[in-house]
């Protein structure tokens, strides 16, 4: 399976501030009553974007000036809580192609990488610089560069970091591991024979 080599993502950004934004805030549990991920995009951040009567709340994703943004910015420990892949699926289906945050919960990070969504890490001060630039001009184009490990925007740039295994997987088009895992199946069968609890 040929996968896209994701070495950079370019697009406009939107800043959703806050720490410890959990996967239930990203996609509330009730939207998990489904047998497919289709259509999840419209429910992203649903309960912080909408009142119970369906009217919009004040939220960056509801602001017309940020419509069409493809880079999501946020705070620390983004994606904590439930392991639901529905969260990065909803983010991706909404239209986001990359996330810049101060840090990520482990499972969310892995789930996102597997979907080809780079989750890059930057310092709070640097994220604030990008957020300020977006605020001043929502049309500012951000370039998230996984090769140079920087984000360029409006003539400025900030440094980013990313776990090397994930960066490598994205830039070399290996972010969906299934092809490589399948190649290892003969070795899997051999190893399984050494573990008594796996006997058929």
């Amino acid at each position: 399976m040929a996968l896209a080599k994701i070495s950079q993502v370019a697009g406009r950004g939107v800043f959703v501030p806050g720490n410890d934004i959990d996967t239930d805030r990203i996609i509330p549990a009730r939207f998990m009553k489904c047998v497919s991920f289709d259509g999840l995009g419209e429910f992203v951040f649903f309960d912080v974007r909408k009142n119970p009567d369906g009217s919009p709340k004040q939220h960056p994703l509801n602001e017309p000036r940020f419509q069409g943004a493809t880079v999501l910015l946020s705070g620390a420990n983004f994606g904590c809580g439930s392991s639901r892949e529905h969260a990065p699926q909803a983010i991706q289906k909404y239209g986001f192609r990359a996330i810049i945050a101060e840090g990520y919960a482990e499972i969310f990070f892995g789930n996102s990488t597997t979907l080809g969504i780079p989750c890059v890490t930057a310092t709070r001060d640097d994220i604030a610089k990008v957020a300020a630039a977006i605020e001043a001009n929502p049309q500012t184009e951000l370039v998230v560069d996984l090769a140079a490990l920087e984000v360029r925007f409006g003539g400025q740039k900030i440094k980013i970091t990313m776990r090397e295994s994930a960066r490598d997987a994205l830039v070399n088009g290996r972010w969906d591991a299934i092809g490589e895992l399948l190649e290892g199946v003969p070795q899997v069968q051999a190893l399984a024979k050494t573990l008594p609890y796996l006997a058929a």
Partner: protein
Amino acid sequence: MAKSLFQKVWEAHTVRQLANGQTQLLIGTHLIHEVTSPQAFGMLRDLKLKVAMPHRTFATVDHIVPTDQLVEPYADPLAQAMMNALRQNCAEFGITFFERSTGKQGIVHIVGPEQGITQPGTTIACGDSHTSTHGAFGAIAFGIGTTQIRDVLATQTMALGALKVRRIEVNGKLRPGVYAKDIILHIIRTLGVNGGTGFAYEYAGEAFDRMSMEERMTVCNMSIEGGARVGYVNPDETTFAYLKGRPYSPKGAEWDAAVARWKSFASDPGCQYDDVVKIDAATIEPTVTWGINPGQAIGVGECIPTPESAASVDEKASIVEALEYMKFKAGAPIKGTKIDVAFLGSCTNGRLSDFEEVARYVKGRKVDPRRGRFRVARGRLLDVPRDEPRQTRRRPGLRQFVEPQLQGPPGQPDRPHDPHESAHGRRRRAHRPRRRRPRSFRGLRKVKPLIDTNLH
């Protein structure tokens, strides 16, 4: 070289290194359920792949089983569709399905131990963050996403980076009224909700040595609330006693060989840890979460924090948000706070021993109908050995608890969930660990079904 259990299990299950430096890890046991697996089977079909080891894949249905309706078709067509999809996928791919009619269905993290599928020195994966529960048995258990479920279905492996290991030792004597849940809340409070990122937690020390398997499961269950994807306790005689005689446990001469093998996986004395944290059991109070994340926990003798008491800008912002959300007064004692809803039956604390403990407290008492609610997940209690349900019925405290105390008034229909109390509503984030979706239990079916109800 002395090694930790994590290192030994990791090495024993390593297939090979992948190009990006991750490990292809063999997953000995794959547990699946209706919420996170249907899309994975869809991906499998798209790729025209089969399930690599159907005999090591076990399914049950838990999250979606309604608490107010046990007979199919469910009133909610989406719930029924998820149930049907799991049933169909298991039939098509030859997977053992512990569905309701088998009497073995229940919370996925408890079915494994109860059936004896969860064993020391093994690797387990399941599409649920609380999969770490199995670590109570000295298994290395990962909560995974749906694409990884596809990977495990197709190859019985997944791509993972190794974790560091932090040993958390709790020594000394626990104070009365301090339970496993208090210990893990204290640990999360101490180390932070993301303090465990990149770590497996090894829980050890006298407090854990003395714990029952149920209590160890409670602690391991909440590892992820502290950011640790994996949490485990080294296997010991308590572990082996629990597993003996379970349906999937080794039998006869195989049992002795298995116990010897399981013992060999325990962390070696003197092995190196990436971090060690020591906690004096006597310092742990009965602990409650007061805010909007599991790290916002305080002892019952403490007061609700004030924004001024925050150690950082982040903590301050979080306290302000939580105070507003919970409508609490900063600095007020938590003791004496009125209970709006008591819910029993979470995947953290939904075992028979938990019900018995609560029964002791509520026996002879009533909930004020003008104010409080008491909710119990309806269904069947898990965690009861195969031969135990009848004994359960004779336990007077529990019987008392189940029949006269929780029976709804005659003629009152089961009520749907109040959105304010379930994972569906706007208050879903409050006390998250204690407000998990109601799930089902096994074992009390011959007593009386439990009914979500007001107590009058």
